[in-house]
C-alpha cells in the first residue's frame, strides 16, 4: 500500500465511513464532486454534488440493509489521484454480494475528492444485487 499522504487521507475516510460518521466521511468530498457508477442498476449513472452522493449511499444502505462489510485491500495515490481497492460483501433476502471494487478519485488542490469512478470487478453481480 502507498504511504502517500493522500493514501492516509483515504484510510481515515474509510474509518469514518465504517464508524457511520457520514459527516466526517463527506468532509473529504469537494462540494461539486462528480460520482460515476457503471452497470445497469439503481446505483448506475452520474451523481453531481454532495447531496446526490449522500443519496447514493442511502440507496446503498437501504439495499444492503446495513449488512455490508468493507475491507480496504490496497490504496494507491499520487498528488492528484487516489485509487482504493475494496473487498465488499453484503447480503439481502438470501442474495449475497462478494466483489472487489476499485474506487478511483481525482483530487483537488486541497486533496478533496473532485471526481470518482466506482468500478466493481463483477458488474453483473452488482447489477443482480441492486436491481
Amino acid at each position: 500500500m502507498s504511504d502517500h499522504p493522500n493514501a492516509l487521507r483515504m484510510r481515515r475516510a474509510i474509518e469514518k465511513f465504517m464508524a457511520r460518521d457520514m459527516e466526517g466521511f463527506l468532509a473529504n468530498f469537494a462540494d461539486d464532486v462528480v460520482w460515476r457508477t457503471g452497470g445497469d442498476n439503481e446505483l448506475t449513472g452520474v451523481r453531481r454534488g454532495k447531496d446526490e452522493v449522500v443519496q447514493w449511499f442511502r440507496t446503498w444502505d437501504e439495499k444492503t440493509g446495513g449488512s455490508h462489510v468493507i475491507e480496504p485491500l490496497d490504496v494507491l495515490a499520487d498528488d492528484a489521484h487516489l485509487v482504493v481497492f475494496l473487498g465488499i460483501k453484503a447480503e439481502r433476502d438470501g442474495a449475497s454480494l462478494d466483489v472487489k471494487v476499485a474506487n478511483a478519485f481525482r483530487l483537488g488542490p486541497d486533496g478533496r475528492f473532485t471526481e470518482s469512478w466506482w468500478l466493481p470487478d463483477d458488474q453483473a453481480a452488482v447489477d443482480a444485487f441492486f436491481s
Partner: protein
Amino acid sequence: MTEHPGVEGARASIEAFNRGDLATLREFYADDVVWHVGGTHGLSGDYRGREELFAYFEKVRDLTGGTITLEPEAILSSEDHTAIFMKVSGERDGRTLDVTLAEAFAIGPDGRWNEFWSLADDQDAVDAFWS
C-alpha cells in the same frame, strides 16, 4: 522518488499498444487473464484468456483503423494492483471517441496482469462509439 516497477511496466505496455506492437504487449498479460468490458455496446462482456483478449485488441484496432490512442494521465501501482487514469481517443466511420477511463488491473503471482476492469467518465459516449 523511484518509480514503482509496476508503473514502468504499465508505461511500456501503453507504448507497445500505441505503436501496434501486440507481440510485446502479450508479455504483460497472464495466460488466464480476465478482461471485463463494461457498458452495453457490441464489445461489452468478459474476455477470458490471452487469446480472447488479443482477438479483442485486434478487433478494436480493425474497427478504428488503428486510430485508438492511449494517453495516460496518471499511473499508480503496488505489488498487487495497477491503476491508470487513461485518456482514450480514436475514430470510427466518422465518429470520434475522446474519454478518460479509470482502469484497474490485478497483478497475478507471476507478476503479470490477470484481471482488468474499467469505467469511462462518459459511458454513454463509449456505448455510442462502439454500437
